[in-house]
C-alpha cells in the first residue's frame, strides 16, 4: 500500500485557506492537504521554513502569487523534500523601481482608513477586468481581506519588498514543475510565466482561460483539473472541458542548432518566442507609437508585455540578443527608424565584427 502524498497549499498576500477551498476539496481524496498560514510572518524565508515544518518528508508545494515565491524558496532551502512544484500567478524578479512607494501607499491606506478601504482599492485589479463588479466573486474576497489586519498586511508587504531574486534559482529546480496563470492576469502576466516555464528545466505551462490574478477562485474548476492531471490523480477529464489549454513545449534555442550554420530560420519556435518583440516593433509603423517609444521607451515596451530579458535586449540595442530572443530583422529594424543606426552596423553587431571589417570582409567594400 503506497503512502498518500502530502501537499502544502501556500496562499498569497492577504489570502488565507479560504482561497484554496475548491482545490483542497479536489485534492483531499488523493493526498493529505495542509495549508500554510503566513499572517504572522514578515519574510519569504520564514514563510518557507514554516511551510516546510507543516509535515515531515516529501512534499508537493503549490503556491499562489506570494505563496508561489514561498514555494520557490522551499525548493532552495530543501530541494530534496520537494517532489513536485506548482507556481500560480506569480513572479520571479526582485523589487521593481517604484514598487516600494506604491506598496507603502496601500500600507498607509490600511492603517488610516481601514481594511475595507484597502480591499476596495486592492481587489479590483486582481480579478478579470470583466468581473470587477461580480459580487459573487468579490464579496468572499473582500470578507477575506477584512479578516486580515493592517499589521498583517504591513508584515507581508515587507516580506514581498525584501523578496529574493527567484530568477537565479530557476535553472536549479530539478522537480517536475507546473506553471499556471490566468490569461487575463494583469498583475503577473502570461509573458512572465512563459519565461519562467522556459527557465525551469522540467516545466510545463498551463493557461487558465477567462481569469485574472485570482485564478484559484475565478476559475476554480480549471485550476483543480490542471492540478489533478499534473499530479496524476483521478485521471478524469483528461484533455477535455477547458482544462490544460495552453500547454506548450518549453523553449530551448540551444537544443536545436541552425541547420545552416549561423543562419536562424524564422520557424514556428522563433516566431512564438519572438512574438512580443516583433509585435512591439511592428507597432513602430505608427507615428503615435514612435512618439510613445521616444518619450518613454520602457513604458512602451511594457505595453507589449516584454519580459525583462527582452526589454534589456531592446533598450541596450543588442541586436544579436534580440534575434536570439526571436526578433526578426524586418520587424526590429523599425527601431532604427526611431533611433537611427545603419543596417550594416546591425549586421556587424550580429557577426561580432567591427563595422569597417564587416564592410570589407563580408560585403567586399574597398
Amino acid at each position, binding site marked *: 500500500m503506497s503512502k498518500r502524498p502530502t501537499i502544502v497549499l501556500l496562499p498569497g498576500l492577504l489570502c488565507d485557506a479560504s482561497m484554496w477551498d475548491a482545490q483542497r476539496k479536489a485534492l483531499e481524496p488523493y493526498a493529505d492537504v495542509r495549508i500554510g498560514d503566513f499572517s504572522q510572518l514578515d519574510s519569504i524565508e520564514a514563510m518557507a521554513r514554516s511551510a516546510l515544518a507543516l509535515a515531515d518528508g516529501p512534499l508537493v508545494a503549490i503556491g499562489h502569487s506570494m505563496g508561489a515565491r514561498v514555494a520557490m524558496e522551499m525548493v532552495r532551502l530543501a530541494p530534496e523534500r520537494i517532489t513536485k512544484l506548482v507556481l500560480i500567478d506569480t513572479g520571479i524578479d526582485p523589487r521593481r523601481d517604484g514598487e516600494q512607494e506604491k506598496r507603502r501607499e496601500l500600507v498607509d491606506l490600511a492603517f488610516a482608513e481601514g481594511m475595507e478601504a484597502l480591499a476596495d482599492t486592492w481587489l479590483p485589479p486582481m480579478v478579470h477586468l470583466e468581473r470587477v463588479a461580480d459580487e459573487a466573486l468579490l464579496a468572499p474576497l473582500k470578507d477575506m481581506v477584512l479578516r486580515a489586519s493592517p499589521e498583517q498586511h504591513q508584515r507581508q508587504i515587507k516580506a514581498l519588498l525584501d523578496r529574493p531574486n527567484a530568477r537565479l534559482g530557476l535553472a536549479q529546480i530539478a522537480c517536475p514543475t507546473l506553471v499556471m496563470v490566468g490569461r487575463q492576469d494583469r498583475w503577473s502576466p502570461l509573458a512572465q510565466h512563459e519565461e519562467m516555464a522556459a527557465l525551469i528545466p522540467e516545466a510545463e505551462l498551463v493557461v487558465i482561460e477567462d481569469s485574472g490574478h485570482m485564478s484559484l477562485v475565478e476559475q476554480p474548476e480549471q485550476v483543480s483539473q490542471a492540478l489533478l492531471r499534473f499530479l496524476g490523480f483521478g485521471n478524469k477529464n483528461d484533455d477535455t472541458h477547458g482544462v490544460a489549454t495552453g500547454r506548450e513545449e518549453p523553449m530551448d534555442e540551444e537544443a536545436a542548432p*541552425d*541547420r*545552416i*550554420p*549561423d*543562419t*536562424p*530560420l*524564422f*520557424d*514556428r519556435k522563433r*516566431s512564438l518566442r519572438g*512574438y512580443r518583440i*516583433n*509585435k512591439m*516593433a*511592428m507597432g*513602430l*509603423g*505608427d*507615428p503615435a507609437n*514612435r512618439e510613445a517609444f521616444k518619450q518613454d521607451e520602457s513604458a512602451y515596451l511594457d505595453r507589449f508585455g516584454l519580459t525583462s530579458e527582452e526589454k534589456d535586449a531592446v533598450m541596450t540595442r543588442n541586436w*544579436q540578443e534580440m*534575434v536570439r530572443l526571436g526578433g*526578426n*530583422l*524586418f*520587424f526590429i*529594424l*523599425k527601431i*532604427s*527608424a*526611431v533611433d537611427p543606426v545603419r*543596417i*550594416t552596423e*546591425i*549586421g*556587424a553587431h*550580429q*557577426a*561580432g*565584427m567591427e563595422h569597417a571589417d*564587416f564592410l570589407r570582409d*563580408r*560585403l*567586399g*567594400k574597398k
Partner: protein
Amino acid sequence: MAKLIGGLGTSHVPSIGAALDKGLRDTPDWKAFFDGYIPGQEWVKRHKPDVAVVIFNDHGNTFFLDKVPTFAVGCAEEYRPVDEGWGPRAIAPFKGEVDFSWHFIDTLVENRFDPMICQEIEVDHGLQVPMELFWGKPDAWPVKVVPIFVNVIQYPIPLPSRCYEMGRVLRKAIESYDSDERFVILGTGGLSHQLQGARAGFVNPEADQAFLNDIADNPDKLAGMSREQYVEMFGSEGAELMMWLVMRGAMDPDVVVRHKHYFVPASMTGAGMIVMENRADAASAAAA
C-alpha cells in the same frame, strides 16, 4: 487577348529607395548600381506596358505574424505606400488593374491555388523599389499594377517549385484575359543577402551571377532546388529569389535576355536586374 511582352527581374532593397530619396543616386556607392538600370528603363519606355504584375514579399510592414498568407493577391483600386517606420514615402499611389486581379484569382483557384484576396492593402518597398527602378518616380504611374505577395519570412515558406507553377497559372490568366493590354511581370527580391544571425552580411556573387544565367536558360534547375539550398546559397533573406520563378514560370521555355546587370553590395545585398522576352515574340518582331 492580353499579351505578355516581357519578364523583368530585380532586387528590391529598401536602401535603393532611401538612396533615391536622399539624392544619393550619383554618389560612388550607388552610381554604378543605378546606371546599370538605364537599359531596363529604356526597354520599358520603348515597350510601354499597360500592366505590371509584381511578385514580392511584404517585410513585416503590411502583414504581421498574426496572419501570414502564403500567397496573397491584391485586387484594390489603389495601393498606397505603407509607413515602414520612417513615414510613408512620397510616391504616387499605384493604380490597380482590378478586373485582371479578380480574373487572376479566379484562374488561380480553378487551378488549385488558393490565395488570400486583398481588396484594401498597402505596399512596402518590395513593390515600390522595383517600380521606381524601371519607371523612375513619375507624378502618376503610367502603368497599373497587380501585386502578388509571397510569404518568404515565416516558415514554412512555399516551395520554389510552387512559385514556378504559380507562374504557369499567371500565364494562363493573361492569355485568357479579354483585353488588349500589354503585360510585364516583375519577379523581385534577392539576390544573395542575409540580415540575421552570425552569418549576417553573407553575399555570394558567383551564385548570383549563375542565377542570372539560369533564370533565363535553366529555370527548371532553379525550380527544383530546395528552400534550404536557396538559404545556403543566397543567405536567409536571399531565399526571396524564388519569387523570380513566378515571373519565369509565366514565360516560354525559350527566352532571349535583353538586358542584365549585377552590382554588389547594394547596402548588404548582391543586387541584380534582368529583362527577358519570349524568343518567339522576339523573332516575330524581327520578321515584321
